[in-house]
Structures are given as C-alpha cells and as structure tokens.
C-alpha cells in the first residue's frame, strides 16, 4: 500500500468487535472457529443474543473461569463453554435442523476466499487435499439466513482474498452477504462488492490495490 497516509489495520479482536456491533438483540447466531468465536466476547450480556453451536448447544454464555469448567459442556471448536439461563441442549440432527432449516438469523464464518458473486471457500486449501475436514461449514453456509465472513483482507503474502472467482474448493455458492476484513466492511450485491466502511486513512484506490474483485462505493 502507498503509505502516503499511515493506516493501521484492525487486529483480530477489533475485527470481532466490529462484527459484534452489527448484531441486534434477539438474533440466533452461530459463530465459526477462529476470529468468529471472538465475536461473542464483544456482545454485552444485556444485549440478549443467543449463540448456537453445531454440537447442539443453544444459549452459550461467557467462557468459564479455569476452576469452573464443566467437562460435559463444549462447543463445536471443542472449547469448554458455559450455558446462559434459558440455554438448551438438542441432539445433532435437531441442531442441524436449526442450521439447515433456516432458523439461524446469522452465521459468522472465517474464509480463505470470498468471490464477488457471494461464493465462499473456507474448508480446503487445494483440490489435491484428499481428506480435508468439512465439519458443519457447508450446512451453515447454505442454511443460515445470513452469512457474514470475517477474515484478513489479504493472505500473509499479500494475495487478495476478495476475488472474482474462488480458486480454492468451494464451500457454498452465492451465500455471503457481507464481509468484514481488517481494512473494510463490504456488502456483496448483485453488482459485486460495495464498500460500506474503510479504516481511517485508507483510500478506495489503496483498498482496490489489495483486492482482486472490482470494488465500488454505495450508489
């Protein structure tokens, strides 16, 4: 990036906080592994958002203190969690009925790539990877009412992740409606990526230089 104006990309927690700011009270939300999991830490308890996990847990609360871990209560990332008052347990088939039946208001996922048509790739890094782990990614991507992706804007080597067409194996087609990166917030629209917000000091030109897909500003 041309450093005419110094810009400071958001860190993982700041990205998670930015996503959290857009989640209203009353939504049922599933959070993927990685940065998405951090989103819950930035939703205040008094804003009642009900977090779901694939292994049948509804109403996940704040992470337990080390000496208060319940060994029988984990999330899909195999981390120990707590249940809020009002929480519920269902079995796996019902948990995925929640996911696949369109009952979740939102799923926040990480990704390797998102394309301008809303395709996403987040489960395998190459066609040659014959035994990647898919878990619930494909179910969540097609089943939730909204899919938001939170990820770094580029790879560590500076390769764009917001692309015209995904090069990694697809998770789902045309499902992503919004992307939060360390540089910007973008909506996926029929006209491609629309930039809603950029970090202070960043220009559209500088953002475009780090993005393969064509960017535009709201009409």
């Amino acid at each position, binding site marked *: 990036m041309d450093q005419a104006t110094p810009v400071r990309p958001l860190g993982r927690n700041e990205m998670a906080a930015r996503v959290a700011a857009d989640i209203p009270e009353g939504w049922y939300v599933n959070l993927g592994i990685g940065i998405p999991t951090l989103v819950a830490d930035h939703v205040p308890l008094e804003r009642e958002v009900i977090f779901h996990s694939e292994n049948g*847990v509804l109403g996940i609360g704040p992470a337990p203190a080390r000496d208060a871990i319940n*060994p*029988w209560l*984990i999330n899909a990332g195999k981390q120990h969690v707590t249940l809020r008052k009002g929480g519920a347990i269902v079995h*796996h088939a019902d948990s995925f009925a929640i996911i696949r039946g369109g009952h979740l208001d939102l799923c926040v996922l990480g990704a390797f790539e998102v394309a301008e048509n809303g395709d996403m790739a987040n489960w395998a890094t190459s066609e040659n990877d014959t035994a990647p782990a*898919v878990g619930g990614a*494909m*179910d969540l991507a097609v089943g939730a009412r909204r899919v938001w992706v939170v990820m770094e804007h580029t790879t560590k080597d500076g390769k764009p992740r917001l692309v015209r067409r995904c090069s990694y194996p697809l998770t*789902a087609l045309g499902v992503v409606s919004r992307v939060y990166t360390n540089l910007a917030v973008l909506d996926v629209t029929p006209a491609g990526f629309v930039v809603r917000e950029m970090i202070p000091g960043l220009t559209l030109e500088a953002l475009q230089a780090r993005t393969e897909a064509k960017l535009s500003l709201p009409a």
Partner: protein
Amino acid sequence: MINKIVRSMAEAMAGIKDGSTVFIGGFGAVGQPNALIDGLIEQGAKDLTVVANNAGTGRVGLARLMELGRVRRIVCSYPRSTGSVVFEELFRAGKIELELVPQGTLAERMRAAAAGIGAFFTPTGFGTKLAAGKETREIQGRMQVLEYALKGDVALIEAWQADRWGNLTYRLSGRNFNPVMAMAAELTIVQAQHIVELGEIDPEVVVTPGIFVNRVIHVPYGDPPI
C-alpha cells in the same frame, strides 16, 4: 420381565459381525462410548465401516481399532483434528477409505434411516466437490443434492442414565450424535454412567426411549477429560 441390562462386555458385544457398519457416538471427548469401543476391539469384528464425527485421536479407542486394521472405511465430517495421527498414516498409505460428509448431512442421513426415509434432497454441498457425481434437482427455486439414508448395523452410545427398558438421558453436550445414532441402527448398545429404577426417569425427560435400545451396560466412568 424386560431387562436390557447386560452384566459383561462380552455379552454387550455378542454377535457383531465382520463387515458391519458401526456408528460411534460422541463429539470431541464428550459423550464418547470409550468402554464400548474397547469392547469392540476385544470382540474382534473386522472389515468394519465406522460412522463417527471424527476419525479418532491419539492411539487409543477408535484410533486403536483403526491401527489394528479392523476398519475398512470411515464415514465422517471431520477426519483431521489435533492428534488424528493414525487416520493420517492409514489414509496416506491407502489402507483406509474415507467418505467425507458435511456434518448436517451426516446427521440427517441417519435420521432418514431411523424414520424409514430412503433419501432426501438438501442444498448442502451443492456445487462443491462433495456433491460430485450426485444427482441434483432444483426444488423450490434452489439447487439441491440427493443424499441417501445411512443405516447402521450397530450403534455404540454413551448415556447418562438408563433403566432396564433402555430409556436414556444424556449429559449436556454429551448428547450430540448419540440419540440419532441410537435410532438409526439395528443393534443399539449403550454404556450408561448410571442405572436407575424403571420409572425413575420422568417420561417428559426421556431423550431416547427404550424402543431404540437393545443392550445397556453400566460403565460409571466419570467425567470426560478436560
């Protein structure tokens, strides 16, 4: 008098044949029927197809069963996880077949089998390599993939409470795949932390009714490791 409670592991494992499809409950270390897996290792059935969310970790339990060359094929959603060393070795050496299934499709294929449904269409996986070669159809404006029911010969289940009719409860996220697997297998074998008197479990609280359960063995093994 109906009594599904068996006194020995040999009795619990009796009759499991070579070539069986075996469901193994559990998600992570929680709700995993470890004693029954060890029982199956001891029992000796081979050429098995194992259906489980993960492909085992470390060198014990499911990983041990695979290392002994007893598993021909594994059907799971998340074969690669921390410590899935045995699976990695066998898979690289071409000694085990893998059918990778999205987690929800895996659960639903078992529920379909339990409910007598032969197959169903789902949008999950459409347009991805996991749907390659599968029949697709547009239904209600959305492209969907045909997935077949998945029936088990045997299900190995971990429960919290069981009575002599085989009514079961589970403990928190120990529930996971256990109830749907119990419903979808021909022979459902349960290890239960607690055996309770008939009538002690409130009918409103029974999660798996005994109609889906064939054998119960009391294994008070305590909490999963933290």
